[in-house]
């Protein structure tokens, strides 16, 4: 098991909060560029957008890191990374890196970190990202903060202040890794805004070797079975979402949610309790441990607005909340609030939207 050189700690009983001189030399904000079968996951671009702000504040370079097989379009990915703000992209190309596996990717990223010493490493909180981040952080014996909703630089310490929900989402907390480097963080897709691509931007690349052979790797990737595309619920990228919560009282009432979504051409979302109760598929869960969404219109029916759900949808342009409880937390951050029974309000809204939009469509036609 490879061990990174651990941070030099002062001898003593106290908790180490001081950054050693050696670790102070770590520079650079890195974003792990995740890709699968020819496409980069958009969370990597979202992280470059966020990373650019952090890098500018620190006066450090923003770099992408991409690992893959020799037949994969890694240079094209690098060029795309430049348009989203990266200054430099580290590339590792090896047949062993064709398709994600924990062992080679962990070694690759860890070796790059040890060689080039970035101060911050960001990954998307996807199945690949979380698998990799935990392994890399443990190998490097450094701090990792998961599912961050906000990233900032603390002006006093130049450290990364990573904010995330805690206690199942009831509160927020800001976490810092003061005495260890690199500071690692994962961010869920859609939490950060997608940056605009600047096609004129260029950057530099460099290549490093992995140094592993296939026979030395224990886990074998036998196959990849793609999901059937039809009927894919595409919540994170939907423009209109109508969501239901436990206030709907029983799963049958979700029909009213689906009706309104259909009239608006939108997707149907739900809260964690509804998913846990088996009322709708898990893919529809909006929230900290479900999907983060940024639609133009989000209608929440029978949802109390616990922070766990809030962090998954508060970036929506227009939030309409329907709840019988006038004190429900959701009214604290909705744009429009209707105090009433969702089972009555939803059909009324469906009818109103349908009539109004039909009229406008006729005008256009």
């Amino acid at each position, binding site marked *: 098991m490879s061990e990174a050189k651990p941070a030099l700690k002062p001898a003593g009983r106290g908790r180490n909060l001081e950054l050693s001189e050696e670790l102070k030399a770590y520079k650079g904000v890195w974003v792990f560029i995740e890709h699968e079968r020819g496409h980069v996951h958009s969370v990597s671009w979202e992280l470059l957008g966020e990373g650019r702000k952090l890098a500018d504040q620190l006066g450090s370079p923003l770099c992408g890191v991409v690992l893959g097989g020799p037949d994969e379009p890694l240079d094209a990915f690098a060029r795309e990374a430049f348009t989203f703000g990266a200054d430099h992209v580290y590339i590792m190309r090896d047949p062993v890196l064709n398709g994600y596996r924990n062992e080679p990717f962990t070694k690759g990223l860890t070796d790059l970190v040890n060689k080039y010493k970035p101060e911050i490493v960001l990954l998307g909180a996807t199945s690949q990202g979380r698998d990799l981040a*935990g392994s890399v952080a443990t190998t490097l014996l450094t701090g990792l903060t*998961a599912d961050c909703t906000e990233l900032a630089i603390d002006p006093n310490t130049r450290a990364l202040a990573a904010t995330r929900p805690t206690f199942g989402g009831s509160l927020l907390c800001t976490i*810092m890794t003061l005495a260890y480097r690199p500071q690692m963080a994962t961010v869920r897709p859609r939490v950060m805004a997608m940056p605009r691509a600047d096609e004129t931007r260029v950057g530099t690349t460099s290549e490093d070797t992995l140094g592993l052979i296939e026979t030395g790797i224990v886990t074998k990737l036998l196959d990849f079975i793609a999901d059937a595309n039809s009927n894919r619920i595409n919540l994170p990228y939907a423009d209109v979402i109508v969501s239901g919560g436990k206030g709907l009282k029983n799963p049958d009432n979700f029909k009213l949610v689906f009706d309104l979504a259909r009239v608006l051409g939108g997707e149907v979302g739900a809260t964690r309790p509804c998913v*846990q109760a088996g009322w709708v598929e898990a893919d529809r869960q909006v929230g*900290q*441990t479900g999907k983060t969404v940024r639609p133009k219109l989000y209608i929440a029916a029978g949802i109390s607005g616990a922070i766990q759900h809030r962090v998954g949808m508060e970036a929506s342009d227009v939030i309409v909340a329907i709840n019988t409880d006038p004190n429900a937390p959701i009214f604290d951050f909705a744009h429009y609030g209707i105090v009433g029974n969702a089972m009555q309000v939803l059909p009324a809204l469906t009818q109103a939207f349908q009539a109004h939009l039909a009229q406008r469509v006729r005008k256009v036609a």
Partner: protein
Amino acid sequence: MHIVVCIKQVPDSAQIRVHPVTNTIMRQGVPAIVNPYDLFSLEEALRLKDQFGGKVTVLCMGPPQAEEALRKCISFGADDAILVTDRAFAGADTLATSYALASAIRKIGSEQKVDMVFTGKQTIDGDTAQVGPGIAKRLGLQLLTYVSRIVETDLEKGTITVERRGEGGVQVLRTALPCLITMLENTNEMRFASLPMMIHAAACQVRKWNKDDAGIEDVTKIGLKGSPTVVSRVFGPTPRAQKAEMMTVESSSLRDISLNLLQSIFTVHPTLEQDLVDKLSA
């Protein structure tokens, strides 16, 4: 076959509330439960035990009351339960937690060789999903996260084949034992405990290990001291500066409310109206 399943006792986050005055978590009256994600991993381990025979040991690092969670696992069919509990572990982040659990698993392995380790995908109070990968790294175990299905286990060859959920599809991976697996949620359903199992669990002894029993070699690596991440601030969410435009069903008719709402929204967001129209025209 000897499988170790790591579990955590967590407050039922669905029932957590924040004290309106002190802004702290009100733990009173909030039941502590076995982290729900852990149960999917435990059930998978029990199924392997059903198939191949052997033993399932559940392991938990936590305060003394976490004993309850371990008993629950025994009632489902785990054979042995170990609670690693010591003040020195308090305040541990995921790096320090994986160090402690890895040490304990090594100790368990010295009593009886461990073939597989299961952990939950993530906890509902931390939601980091980091401890499983951390343990695997420290013990040199092959890591398989987000497993949606165990396809085949071959004890003779010492291999296991699984389906692992990735973005847009499922990876089929084969690796060698010993390995560490985290199961995806809803991949199985936990069995019900019979009454004799419930009584057995209530009566059985849960082994308690302090940091020495757990084989901790370096105390600077556990608890608060061994945690690189520092919580600098905990706070409640800030309410939006501008309050919501409120309507009550009591005061106006449903029809009026709907029309008012549409009018409000579309006046303030004309592009939204256009987008919806475009969508429907398409």
